[in-house]
């Protein structure tokens, strides 16, 4: 099959603003991923195309892109999902809401600033158990934050959020998911500090339950549900 690719280009050394460039790839397979096609474009047609990727297996979260108008990982999105028949149209652009560095590469720093603000690490200052081994918790307690442990920080959720597009000071869905992961961990002791961050003016209250984040998550995390649980914790004072 043939892939008609339309890719958003931007070179800070020469371009005042971004533009669309078209490429055609022949002999593509339905099982080829968007990343495979981007690689073929870069390696066979235009070596100047810049993109970020690492593992290419949906684990590292490096290649989140806006593909045919929706955020997803280039390595997990197959041609079969974009269409069928002899010709497939594929439009790829950088994720929105973050500054573009070059072509499909964005500056992730603002995203990671929000991530760091929720203290995304285990905090417990009490002495370790006498046997020196792990702090135990029940399976039911573990289940409460199981979903939010799956986040790979690809930023697909945050950059699909219209509230984040409108105001970059909003911490964003990914940071709230990270906060959720520790707030609802019965072994963690810094829930109040994290709730202060996500309960701020630019915290969860900016969420309008649009559900773009849930649709965009390549790990199928129920992001909007996690945000709702944090809102409930903030309004009820119970976690």
């Amino acid at each position: 099959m043939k892939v008609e690719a339309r890719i958003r280009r931007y070179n800070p050394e020469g371009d005042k603003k971004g533009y669309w460039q078209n490429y055609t790839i022949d002999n593509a397979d339905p099982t080829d991923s968007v990343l495979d096609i981007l690689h073929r474009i870069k390696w066979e047609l235009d070596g100047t195309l810049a993109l970020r990727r690492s593992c290419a297996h949906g684990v590292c979260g490096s290649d989140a892109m806006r593909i045919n108008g929706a955020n997803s990982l280039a390595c997990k999105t197959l041609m079969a999902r974009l269409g069928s028949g002899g010709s497939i149209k594929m439009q790829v652009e950088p994720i929105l809401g973050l500054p573009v560095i070059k072509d499909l590469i964005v500056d992730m720093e603002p995203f990671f600033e929000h991530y760091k603000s929720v203290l995304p690490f285990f905090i417990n200052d009490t002495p370790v158990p006498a046997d020196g081994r792990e702090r135990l918790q029940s399976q039911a307690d573990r289940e409460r934050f199981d979903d939010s442990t799956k986040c790979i920080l690809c930023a697909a959720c945050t950059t699909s959020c219209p509230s984040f597009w409108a105001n970059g000071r909003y911490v964003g869905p990914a940071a709230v998911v990270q906060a959720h992961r520790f707030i609802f961990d019965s072994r963690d002791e810094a829930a109040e500090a994290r709730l202060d961050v996500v309960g701020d003016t630019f915290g969860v209250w900016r969420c309008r339950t649009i559900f773009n984040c849930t649709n965009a998550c390549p790990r199928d995390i129920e992001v909007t549900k996690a945000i709702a649980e944090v809102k409930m914790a903030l309004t009820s004072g119970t976690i």
Partner: protein
Amino acid sequence: MTTTIHNNVTSRKVKVKRNFERNAYTFMRISGVILLFLAIGHTFLQLIINNVHDLTVNKIAMENWSNALRRGSEFLLLIFAMSHGLNGLRNVLEDYVHGKGAVTLIRLGLAVFLIITLLVVGYAIIAFNPDAAAAGVSSIGYGQ
């Protein structure tokens, strides 16, 4: 932080800071539920109990608005609809307007609009005299 365990699930009480956005969020949820009942009640009374073909000025003045409870519920509907709606508008505007001064101006403008509307309509509802209104309607022969 008090901790309780029920069915192997740990539940903890935490201190949460209150702020304007949190209060506004809570208000939107509560007022939304109240509005649901008030609006359904209003619709039920206005369009089902009263036949829509009988919705004349005379009918409204003589029967509906002579009932203090009815006037009270209409005023409550106005209060919650206006405050809920204007707070929603504030949310939308503040998504796109980021300057501190502009945000203050928006909040002030919406608050003034809310207060003036409630005062004017509140005065109209409280000062409404059904007998005088009905007499006026009779004198011009309208809405019989």
